[in-house]
């Protein structure tokens, strides 16, 4: 009970704080400035979301099967080496990846989607691989011993039990993706980066904030959406958030 009442106090405090911040923003003219940029925000947000959906969606579609493939026993020898390569790949800054992809594919949406796709691919592949490899050998022996085929083992035992870890990878990767999309503006793909970088160049903090705050909100929304999907999709018996 003391914990609950403490939580309530915190919630009230938070609500008051948000209200005060809102009043402050209103009186300082922040809201007005924001409304001034609203048409830009709307236009660029749609571009931004498209970039996230295309690159992120493509990454999920490619990374999960890739992780599954690498986790197969027949791939054991290649897998560890390949995972090391992928780990090294993760350390390359995303800006560098975008620059590299621009030098091959030119400017525009295509190189941006490709660069973002590569950056997003790695965490998902790694978590899929680690999650599947982490399924207890006893479970695998039980599954084999009662007569499941390798495909049945993957779909009915391995995948459901690794799903929570896989979703954690997707969340990390998508948060990274949303936060990286502004850089795509630099290679001519648009998105909220337009407001942010123009704001920086023109030394216009309001313009910059209009892009930055919207990007942050989008990141929070995407993360929450994936969390909700994970909550619903991961079986209750192996879902820590539903224990």
């Amino acid at each position, binding site marked *: 009970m003391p914990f609950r009442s403490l939580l309530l106090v915190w919630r009230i405090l938070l609500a008051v704080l948000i209200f005060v911040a809102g009043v402050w923003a209103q009186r300082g003219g922040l809201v007005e400035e924001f409304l001034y940029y609203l048409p830009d925000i709307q236009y660029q947000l749609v571009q931004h979301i498209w970039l996230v959906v295309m690159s992120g969606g493509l990454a999920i579609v490619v990374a999960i099967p890739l992780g599954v493939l690498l986790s197969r026993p027949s791939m054991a020898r290649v897998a560890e080496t390949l995972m090391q390569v992928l780990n090294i790949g993760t350390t390359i800054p995303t800006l560098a990846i975008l620059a590299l992809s621009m030098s091959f594919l030119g400017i525009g949406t295509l190189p941006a989607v490709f660069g973002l796709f590569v950056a997003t691919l790695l965490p998902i592949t790694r978590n899929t691989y680690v999650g599947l490899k982490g399924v207890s050998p006893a*479970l695998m022996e*039980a599954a084999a011993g*009662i007569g499941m085929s390798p495909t049945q083992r993957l779909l009915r035992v391995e995948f459901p039990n690794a799903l929570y870890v896989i979703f954690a990878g997707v969340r990390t990767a998508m948060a990274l993706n949303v936060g990286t999309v502004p850089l795509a503006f630099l290679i001519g793909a648009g998105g909220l980066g337009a407001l942010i970088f123009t704001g920086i160049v023109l030394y216009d903090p309001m313009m910059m904030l209009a892009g930055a705050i919207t990007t942050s909100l989008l990141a929070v929304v995407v993360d929450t959406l994936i969390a909700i999907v994970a909550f619903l999709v991961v079986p209750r*018996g*192996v879902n820590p958030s539903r224990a």
Partner: protein
Amino acid sequence: MIQLDSLTKVFDTPKGAVVAADHIDMEVPAGEICILIGPSGCGKTTTLKMINRIVRPSSGKVFIDGKDTTDMNTQDLRRSIGYVIQQIGLFPNMTIEENITVVPRLLGWDAPRFKKRAREMMDMIAMDAEVFLKRYPSELSGGQQQRIGVARALAADPPVMLMDEPFGAIDPINRAVIQDEFLKMQQELNKTILFVSHDIDEAIKMGNRIAVFREGKLVQYSSPDDLLAAPENAFVESFLGEDRALKRLNLVKVRDVVSNEIGTVRPDETLETALARIDDFGYQNSILMVNDRHQPVGMITRSVARTTKGYCRDHFQAAPPLASLDDDLRKVASLMFAHDTTWLPCVDEQGRVSGQITQRAMTRHLGSRYRSRSEERIHAGREE
């Protein structure tokens, strides 16, 4: 029935070939439990796992009910064999119901049939279907989980079961309970079971037959009583432990040792008669007093009978502890030690006295077949 014909497994390791199982020949008759036992690395688990091909045999054959399994499809073979492992291996992503029905579903049973089967299995393992079927394995205790593990293995009613140290990870009290439950189930189900254990007491309790392994070879294959009475060599003898004669107490029933000859007195007889009968039968201290239905009601001691006059009904002491015909000798010995006595009256199901069991008879029964390999060796050495 399971037959192993020259079953061999050679593992290629960096240090060279290791023979994990060396031409194992054995036969487990239908409806019996055969325990595979031995020190770690002796090949017992490898042998077990070659039967459902978790380990691929290097050579040799496995016959189930006379049918060579070599050419059978691996998945089909495994679905026809119940499999229980020490780590239990329930699928945490599935409910208890889904876990139990996993093999029936693989076999393509329709929903009403496998749902009904899940309830039957819960009844069989004495767990409440309403309470547990919708739960997940993580919500159950270790003992409950392994009961479900057994139920899962039995769900498709396979004629054969393989159990790899199934009760090894369960605490001793729960283990004894589960062992008893399992034996009771087996009396009805009559499965042919191969069971790996490293616990000789478990082997003696559970097994109709025991196969002792050492370094990939089958050293001895016999009934628990034969094994304990006459180990094949010094290794088996040392494996069984120095108290192997005591372990046999578990295996012998009162029925096998009871002597039907027992002197009794009735309440309406005199103490004089009692004393005479004590002497007639050669009893040292006392004689049992029974009622009209031949049920024990008390005891007349020699000292009372000698010094007092009167009827038995006025001078008896409390009846001694009783042994029933289906008790094992371990319980009888325990009662004797606890009550400082050398004999117990035995009663049948209706509580009527049917004989007596004495320490002398017990030691004679156990000693008559006891053979010591190490002593024989010493004698042989002397003769040379």
